[in-house]
């Protein structure tokens, strides 16, 4: 290859990487693209819960780790930042490049090698992450799962997360109530490999079983992208358009798809009344609720996932230990509807406040 060509290629490569770095650095702040309606936007400005936090420990070097960029993690990060602001403790905040367990292993091992000794982690893989934890915890490192739990048994001290089955049951109850206690439901599940999906399905099935006039006429699942979700929700709706009365989703992606498909159905003059309940506060979902296309959505507590997991790590660093059977910290959830769109976030903050006040008595001992 000619020297000139090599130079040219090198220049192009350098230019690309430089542009990448500049774009990444100048990228819009996390909240800049259409701030989510309701809770997510509101939570940015909320002060940390008021109860006293433990004093800072100089040996406490905490890390907050999320596997990949996602709106949910930006909300969790706000809780972590509130903890930092309140305690003055610097938290190393890292977001990985993908949902790959291998990436997570490499990054967390590197952080541990740098002397970080307390990790709040969203596990990339419920089973695979345990292998990583088993390497780290014998060295005195405390780990807490946020957002979801690793498979049991685990060496993580706590999981601060939504009780997914309870949330699914509440969603089903709300949907059935909106349907007037009778009718046919399409249940849209998400990723089948996720153990939480089975719990969500179980929760919905249990609620539906209580209502003799309610039937699940179709289940849709194995959804990994919005494209797939829109296609499958659209297909399921087409297949049952003459008999469906309600549609429920317990995953973020299907909820966005339901909002999109139902909004379009209404726009095109679809006259059947189809009730819908989703989860999380993507702007399309919140807009659909505002427009009356969807009935409501389960609002999780990402702020609490971040704040409470850091607080627990600090307690652990001060010599507290988890009480027996006190592994799961239910971070709570709320149900947002057209009526409480402006205020539901206060309910969630109250839950965080309540859990914080109970942490020492309910979950820890010395």
């Amino acid at each position, binding site marked *: 290859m000619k020297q000139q060509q090599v130079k040219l290629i090198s220049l192009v490569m350098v230019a690309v990487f430089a542009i990448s770095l500049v774009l990444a650095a100048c990228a819009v702040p996390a909240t800049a693209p259409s701030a989510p309606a309701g809770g997510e936007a509101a939570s940015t400005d909320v002060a940390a819960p008021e109860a006293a936090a433990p004093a800072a420990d100089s040996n406490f070097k905490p890390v907050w780790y999320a596997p990949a960029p996602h709106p949910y993690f930006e909300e969790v990060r706000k809780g972590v930042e509130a903890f930092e602001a309140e305690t003055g403790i610097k938290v190393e905040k890292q977001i990985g490049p993908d949902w790959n367990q291998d990436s997570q292993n490499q990054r967390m091992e590197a952080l541990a090698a740098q002397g970080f000794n307390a990790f709040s982690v969203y596990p990339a893989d419920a089973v695979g992450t345990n292998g990583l934890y088993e390497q780290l915890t014998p060295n005195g490192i405390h780990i807490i799962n946020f957002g979801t739990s690793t498979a049991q048994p685990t060496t993580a001290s706590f999981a601060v997360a939504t009780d997914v089955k309870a949330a699914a049951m509440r969603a089903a109850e709300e949907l059935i109530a909106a349907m007037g206690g009778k009718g046919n439901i399409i249940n849209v599940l998400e990723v089948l490999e996720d153990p939480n999906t089975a719990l969500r399905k179980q929760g919905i099935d249990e609620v539906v079983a209580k209502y003799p006039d309610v039937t699940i006429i179709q289940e849709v699942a194995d959804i990994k992208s919005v494209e797939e979700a*829109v296609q499958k929700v659209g297909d399921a709706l087409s297949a049952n358009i003459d008999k469906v009365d309600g549609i429920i989703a317990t995953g973020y992606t299907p909820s966005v798809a339901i909002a999109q498909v139902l909004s379009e159905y209404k726009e095109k003059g679809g006259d059947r009344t189809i009730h819908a309940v989703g989860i999380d506060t993507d*702007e399309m979902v919140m807009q659909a609720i505002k427009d009356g296309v969807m009935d409501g959505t389960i609002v999780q507590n990402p702020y609490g996932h971040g704040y409470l997991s850091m607080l627990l790590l600090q307690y652990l660093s001060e010599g507290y230990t988890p009480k027996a059977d006190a592994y799961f910290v239910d971070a709570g959830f709320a149900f947002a509807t057209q009526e409480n769109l402006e205020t539901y976030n206060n309910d969630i903050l109250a839950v965080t406040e309540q859990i914080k006040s109970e942490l020492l008595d309910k979950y820890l001992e010395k």
Partner: protein
Amino acid sequence: MTQREVKLLARQTNQRGGVGSALRGILRRSDTSVVIATLILFILFSFSNSSFLTPFNLFNMSRTASLYVMVALGQAIVIVIGHMNLSLGAIGGLTVVVAGWCMDTMGWSPWVAAPLALLIGTLCGMFNGFIIVKSRLNSFIVTLASLFIFTGLVQGISQGFPYSNIPKEFTMMGRNDLMGVPFLFIFVVIVLIVLGYVFKYRIVGRRLLATGGNLEAARLSGIRTDNIILLAHTLSGVFAATAGLLWVSRMGSAQPSTGTDWLIVSFAVAIIGGTALNGGEFSALGILASAIMLTLIKNGLIMLNVNVYFEQTFLGVIVLLAVSVESIRMALSNRSRRSQVKSTA
């Protein structure tokens, strides 16, 4: 008798024959099997569920198939020259994010945002082509590297947040129709007709096929193969970007996760549709039929309410059955050729 003589005899017989020769001609086409399989599936699903033929379902299916076609074209155009583009989905994702950023964050008109996003996608494709041509590296390696670059840009710019404030007029293409036929489908059919024409009758199309058929022979015959490779990858970027924009138009929002699952679809639709994996062959009709077939199967499985935990298994089995029509076609085609040669001899 040499193969050339056999072909010559077959051609002479075709010229003399009537319906029989027309049938033989159809059998010889590589896209015949996928068209037949698609028709069979369409008929089967029509009888299996009364909702299948409703306008609502047909409208949705044709839109999904249209997007599959556009994604597959992004891959097919490089497969034709014996290359591949692993960064196809990431280019689509980057286009989506750029379009969303322009319209939502910057508040720019779609008339500015869409061409800008399309330009970014085109430049991404051109970047792939340029590196491949200049470095002589395999397209697999180069596009694998650029997949990471573009994915990083998608995540860096969007930080995972969707862009929701997309002007209503931008959704016209993705949501509206002309007498029940989605604009998306009409657009894609026009693109396919143009491509079919270019590949069959235009010099640039023949050069693309020749480059994929035999790179060295193409070069020796005077084709500037480097330019053709650059062109193919640039077009791949154009198709990926167009698919991304069409997706934003359908969704009414720009989701940064767009494109993450395009890779399998792009290869599946292109290859099942008759694009030769080692280059040199392209079928516009095959790609359309293949996209419709995949959409039909996915839609049909939901219509039939199959167990969600075994859905992938059913999908695989039906795809396998559908493509096995190809082996039947080849057997029939060979038999017809043999009998034709016998009768002529």
